[in-house]
């Protein structure tokens, strides 16, 4: 399988969009660190940006790549190789190259301007989000054969996780204001990888003091080794759930 990844990677890495994406992230990160003044402020603005653009690019690129590689995958299927291998190679190829773009575009500036645990959390979050949204992209792609429809579903998914979900949460929290919601918000956070990533990074920043009692509760949970382990386990779950469902569909459907 790793042979296949090598070729998929080779193809994607030379993709103009990936190069543009890397440069975009690089310029933006450097710009934000210069504008922000303090490294913390730079990280904070970067966080906002990362959690908006990385999912969008990942899901759109993942979906279009899947549809563009359709005939190639057909060709591979005609070869003596398991379908799941083809699928996973494609998946890893896309997510690894997007992660690499992210690693260069954001990781290098972070290492230069704001090295430390917070930066590391931001990078990990970004990479996880990349893997998660590529998985979602592949899920969207195997659901329908129509490219336009697939991209539509992908965009809806992005819209949901980046925007609608938070709106729903706000609505729920507001409606049930009389209830003790601190722990419920923990669960609600876990239900959206974007929120989970954001909270993880925020807790490492000064801003966490502004999160008051709820933030203190979060901190007591995410501050421990166990809490972080659980948070990242949830992230892993967020990668595996869509990925494995997509693989299942892919294995059982006609090309």
């Amino acid at each position: 399988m790793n042979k296949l990844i090598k070729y998929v990677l080779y193809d994607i890495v030379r993709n103009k969009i990936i190069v543009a994406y890397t440069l975009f992230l690089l310029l933006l990160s450097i710009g934000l660190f210069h504008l922000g003044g303090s490294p913390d402020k730079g990280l904070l603005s970067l966080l906002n940006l990362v959690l908006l653009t990385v999912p969008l690019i990942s899901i759109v690129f993942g979906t279009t790549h899947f549809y563009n590689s359709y005939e190639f995958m057909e060709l591979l299927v005609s070869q003596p190789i398991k379908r799941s291998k083809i699928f996973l190679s494609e998946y890893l190829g896309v997510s690894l190259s997007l992660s690499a773009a992210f690693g260069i575009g954001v990781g290098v500036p972070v290492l230069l301007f704001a090295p430390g645990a917070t930066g590391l959390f931001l990078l990990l979050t970004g990479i996880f989000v990349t893997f998660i949204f590529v998985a979602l992209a592949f899920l969207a792609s195997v659901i329908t054969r129509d490219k336009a429809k697939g991209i539509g579903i992908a965009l809806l998914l992005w819209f949901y996780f980046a925007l609608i979900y938070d709106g729903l949460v706000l609505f729920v929290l507001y409606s049930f204001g009389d209830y003790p919601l601190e722990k419920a918000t923990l669960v609600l956070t876990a239900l959206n990888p974007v929120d989970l990533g954001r909270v993880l990074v925020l807790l490492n920043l000064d801003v966490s003091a502004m999160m008051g009692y709820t933030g203190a509760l979060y901190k007591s949970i995410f501050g421990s080794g166990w809490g972080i382990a659980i948070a990242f386990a949830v992230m892993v779950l967020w990668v595996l759930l869509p990925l494995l469902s997509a693989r299942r569909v892919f294995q059982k459907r006609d090309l």
Partner: protein
Amino acid sequence: MINRTTLYTLSLLLVLLGAAACSVEPKPVPYGEANCTHCQMTVSDNRYGAELVNDKGKPFFFDAAECLASYVIEQPEVSDKAAYLLVTDFTNPNTLIEVEKAHFLQSKELASPMGMFLTAVADEATATKMQQEYGGRLLNWEEIKEAVRNNEKPQ
């Protein structure tokens, strides 16, 4: 298949969410991390904290029994429905006792955070012993509310 899996996951999460939200029970007072619901000061002295848990299980923290009493007086619509009204046992910091069962000592020698000199303990014997040591008067919760209403401080 996906639909069924998603359904399972969703319902599991809903149950989790419900379980996390709906237990009506006293919560430990987060000293140093919460502000008093009544006076907004930091709840920080673990011998004096107080708590109100509403009928839905949401806790409100107070830095002192007098703040809880003031809140109860000012917000009858909340406190009438409260599931728990709790104060800290002075002799067992971090331990909460229900106000109806608490014995309060008002003594000039023991300053509580909000200046009413109110100290709560769980059992009567300790209360009497402390009264002998520090002077002052013993009160129950009803009398505390009355004292707070009239701002009666020890002389």
